[in-house]
């Protein structure tokens, strides 16, 4: 049973910009209509604002040490209390958002770019290239990310750069697989044959024809993964591989505060809550996006 929607002149807005704009507006509308994904969106927007306006939100300098004020519980002067060196935890958490979110996004950008390129080539070319690339992917997938990260840290030294490289290196196989799967199915479509007949070469087909059709599932995966990269980055920080003290990295803060968990619970709890909030916001948003985009993928 087909229900025709188009008429002779077309019902959607004319022009390229019109169509994309309508689609985005429509997606947003759907996202906000579902309370769960709406909550996720609110959380994500909130985090972004915190990240962008951090210098204006902090009440104290996150790095200032006041040994006389150490271990102060949460109060109006220090919203989240102070840590073992008297630093204001609220300001540190706010500033730390920049670190965590940056790691999350840079990691994702690295891994999606690398994964997409590999996935496209493997899926489109097939044959030996596909086999080789997929075996390499399998090898990387098999490595526990922590071990790999430790190895990279050992090679490059500790610090933010190491974490970003390490996470990027462990995350790309996921995208390579995803894009390869998409490419394999798109490759058989008649419009790819038509593109070949038009004289399009491999690169043009991959970039112009296949990639735009992979964006939707890619976006869904990315939005769900942001939360996990932040979590992974926090994990690295917890292990001491990531940002080094006195940097207000959330994971690091959780680690240093873990010693004082019983008496001075606020040292670890607030950065922990920040991690939790970030991860769940992105996850809910990702879930919502997936529910919206998947059935539309099928319909479209």
């Amino acid at each position, binding site marked *: 049973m087909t229900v*025709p929607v*188009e*008429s*002779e002149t*077309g*019902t*959607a807005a*004319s*022009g*390229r910009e019109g*169509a994309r704009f309508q689609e985005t507006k429509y997606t947003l509308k759907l996202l906000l209509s579902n309370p769960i994904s709406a909550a996720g969106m609110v959380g994500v927007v909130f985090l972004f604002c915190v990240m962008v306006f951090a210098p204006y939100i902090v009440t104290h300098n996150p790095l200032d040490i006041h040994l006389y004020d150490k271990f102060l519980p949460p109060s109006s002067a220090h919203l989240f209390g102070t840590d073992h060196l008297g630093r204001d935890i609220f300001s540190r958490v706010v500033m730390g958002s920049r670190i965590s979110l940056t790691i999350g996004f840079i990691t994702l950008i690295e891994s999606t770019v690398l994964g997409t390129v590999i996935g496209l080539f493997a899926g489109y070319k097939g044959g030996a290239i596909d086999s080789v690339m997929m075996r390499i992917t399998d090898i990387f997938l098999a490595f526990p990310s922590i071990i790999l990260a430790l190895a990279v840290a050992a090679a490059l030294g500790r610090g933010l750069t190491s974490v970003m490289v390490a996470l990027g290196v462990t995350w790309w196989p996921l995208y390579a697989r995803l894009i390869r799967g998409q490419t394999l199915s798109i490759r058989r*479509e*008649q*419009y790819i*044959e*038509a*593109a*070949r*007949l*038009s*004289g*399009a*070469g491999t690169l*043009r087909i991959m970039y*112009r*024809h296949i990639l*735009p*059709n992979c964006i939707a599932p890619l976006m869904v995966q990315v939005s769900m993964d942001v939360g996990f990269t932040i979590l992974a980055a926090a994990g690295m920080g917890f292990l001491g591989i990531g940002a080094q003290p006195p940097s207000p990295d959330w994971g690091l803060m959780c680690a240093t505060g873990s010693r004082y968990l019983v008496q001075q619970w606020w040292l670890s709890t607030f950065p922990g809550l920040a991690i939790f909030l970030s991860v769940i916001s992105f996850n809910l948003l990702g879930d919502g996006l997936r529910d919206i985009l998947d059935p539309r993928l099928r319909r*479209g």
Partner: protein
Amino acid sequence: MSEAILGVRNLKKFFPIKGGLLQRTQANVHAVDGVSFDVSEGECIGLVGESGCGKSTLGRCIIRLIEPTSGEIRYRGSDISGMDTKELWSRIQMVFQDPMSSLNPRLTIGYCIGEPLIVRKTPEAEVRARVGELLAEVGLNEEHYGRFPHEFSGGQRQRINIARALISDPEFIILDEPTSSLDVSVQAKILNLLNDIKSRIGITYMFISHDLSVIKHLSDTILVMYLGKLVEIAPKRELFSMSLHPYTRLLIDSIPSRSRRYRGEHAESPLSLELPSNIDPPKGCRFHTRCPKVMDVCRVNDPELIEVEAGHYVACHLYN
């Protein structure tokens, strides 16, 4: 008589079926199994057959989207396997079957149509002008250059496909079931359009379909294909008034039509139900399992395609 624009000799295309630990070829699907014919310039040749007969594969071999396993294809005398694909695809083009999946949903139709020019680095203004011309030629609005495929109906999408095939100024177009997914009233428009284009620029068509009535409407010569082989070639009128091969007869008789109104026939013989597989097919005529006129020789020898009358070829032991 016009010269032969396309000559196909003993074309074969097998698809290996791999299996086992070492992925060895266990069997072959004989999609096209020794096909030979000629196409004269300016004619419309119809290729008809049911699913699995290999007609789509044959079309794709001719246009070199697939490489044949063996055999020869000559375009204006030159072997196409030696030709540069850029050159070939400026001479031969293809219109695909499914209007839904033959246009990239993420690209504007202007890009889809203009891609052959864009690839050759033609300046944008020229591309736009040319695309506009073609949109008008296929009966669409030039202003819709920037729209997306989903904004058009099935019939309009096929027009876009036709425009895309025409933009490289080809001499020969292969149409692979171009109207099979369309409604009857829309099909009429597309068939008329194809006819108009043909009378205007004298292009040669190869029309592939499973629908004999559509083929009859458009074609000059008809090729009937069954399980990878050509069983009959004849000019249109002769094929219908004087079909020789039993399969052609069966095909014509199976077309639903008011003129065949009947009631309560005897039960169909079970032989007709099984379509033989084209994986490593057995010896003998491919049609012998379903043929009402089967003889002993049919089970053993594969008949050759021979010219029974001028321009009328058949591969059947009844006429050897």
